[in-house]
């Protein structure tokens, strides 16, 4: 563990990259997931079919395979060759996580009473206005706990990037464990604590939103 503490700047840098991947992927997958859910419940058949197929396909694929696709398979056929690694990592994590966001939101939408959408239609709102101003805001509020879990899972999933060129926390941890394999337990503990801190921050934010929105209703 001493090695870890005497090289603590390396640890912090690695976790900073973890936070960057997680934060960027979080934003992108929330946006993408919202678009997907809008397609899924929307009136256009082709988009509905596309979103349903996409969610079924990607959600049932291991994240590692998504990474291999983006980082190994795609460059072999000439895609993403000069895309920055961080961006590729965010793409891989977001493509995967957005399907879970979509499903969390869909459960949230199901929790919004039908009358809410009917009332919105009755004052002349179009489908997209209805979604944007009435259904989705309420669905988001109802989805905070599952979305929080999705974001936590996503943060831990960023560790897959360690073996795809990104020296984030898990990559740095391997660096330490390879050199000091005898102290693997101590090193693991230090890095686990790092992840716990990040995840707890997400949990707290999630609880905070949940409480605030519950009070507002």
């Amino acid at each position, binding site marked *: 563990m001493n090695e870890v503490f005497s090289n603590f700047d390396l640890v912090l840098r690695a976790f900073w990259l973890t936070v960057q991947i997680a934060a960027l992927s979080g934003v992108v997958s929330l946006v993408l997931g919202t678009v997907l859910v809008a397609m899924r419940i929307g009136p256009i058949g082709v988009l509905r079919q596309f979103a349903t197929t996409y969610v079924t396909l990607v959600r049932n694929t291991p994240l590692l395979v998504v990474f291999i696709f983006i980082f190994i398979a795609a460059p072999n056929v000439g895609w993403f060759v000069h895309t920055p690694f961080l961006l590729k990592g965010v793409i891989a994590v977001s493509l995967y996580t957005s399907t879970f966001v979509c499903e969390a939101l869909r459960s949230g939408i199901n929790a919004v009473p039908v009358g809410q959408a009917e*009332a919105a239609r009755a*004052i002349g709102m179009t489908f997209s206005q209805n979604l944007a101003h009435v259904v989705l805001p309420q669905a988001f509020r109802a989805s905070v706990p599952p979305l929080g879990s999705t974001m936590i899972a996503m943060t831990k999933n960023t560790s897959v990037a360690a073996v795809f060129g990104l020296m984030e926390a898990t990559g740095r941890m391997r660096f330490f464990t390879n050199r000091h394999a005898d102290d693997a337990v101590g090193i693991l503990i230090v890095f686990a604590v790092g992840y716990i801190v990040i995840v707890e921050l997400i949990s707290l934010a999630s609880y905070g939103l949940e409480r605030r929105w519950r009070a507002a209703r």
Partner: protein
Amino acid sequence: MTDVGTVGREPLVALDHVDKWFGQLHVLQDINLVIGRGEVVVVIGPSGSGKSTLCRAINRLETIDKGTIALDGQPLPQEGKALAQLRAEVGMVFQSFNLFAHKTILENVMLGPVKVRKQPKADAEKRARELLDRVGVGHQAEKYPAQLSGGQQQRVAIARALAMEPKVMLFDEPTSALDPEMIKEVLDVMVDLARGGMTMVVVTHEMGFARTAGDRVVFMADGRIVEENTPEEFFDNPRSERAKDFLSKILKH
């Protein structure tokens, strides 16, 4: 059937040979109904008679299988932008209020004018506050729907519909979900509205309201319009057996 009510009035809502099925169930059977501008039509009938479906069909919250429904001479378009525009002209008040739970009372009333009518926020707010004052909940403007009583919520719902300046107001059993002591405050607002010349279709069991404010009573049973008449004639001299039977049941209590 006598043609009451529409005499001398310009037709605003016209249902022509309307049929609708829920699966095997024929919920609207050959409905022909014309509602004149400024007329207050009260639709009554036993539960399952199709009266709510009729009301909801007028702004196409329920689709119909046969026939046409026209508003101000224009047939209802298919789902889409044109239908949304047309719905903006038709106010609707639901049994369960359906106020937007995540918005304040004021925001509920402003949402339609701002997003659908594209009114400037300041204008919409001024008008919303006037309407809230008119229905007597002006002092609750900053609260959320869940913090209001049922009667207050329903009055807000009326204000929300009025904010769109609709040509016609549809009321789908507006007092059925209310505690008895709150029914009057809602009916008072509706009577006021009727006196102000609003065209109204009201599905209700409130006979008092029908007598006070109604121009015409439409009695429905088993998906058909069985009888139409002025409120006085209908309540004092029902002609059909179904209506007599129905009135005897509800007036006993």
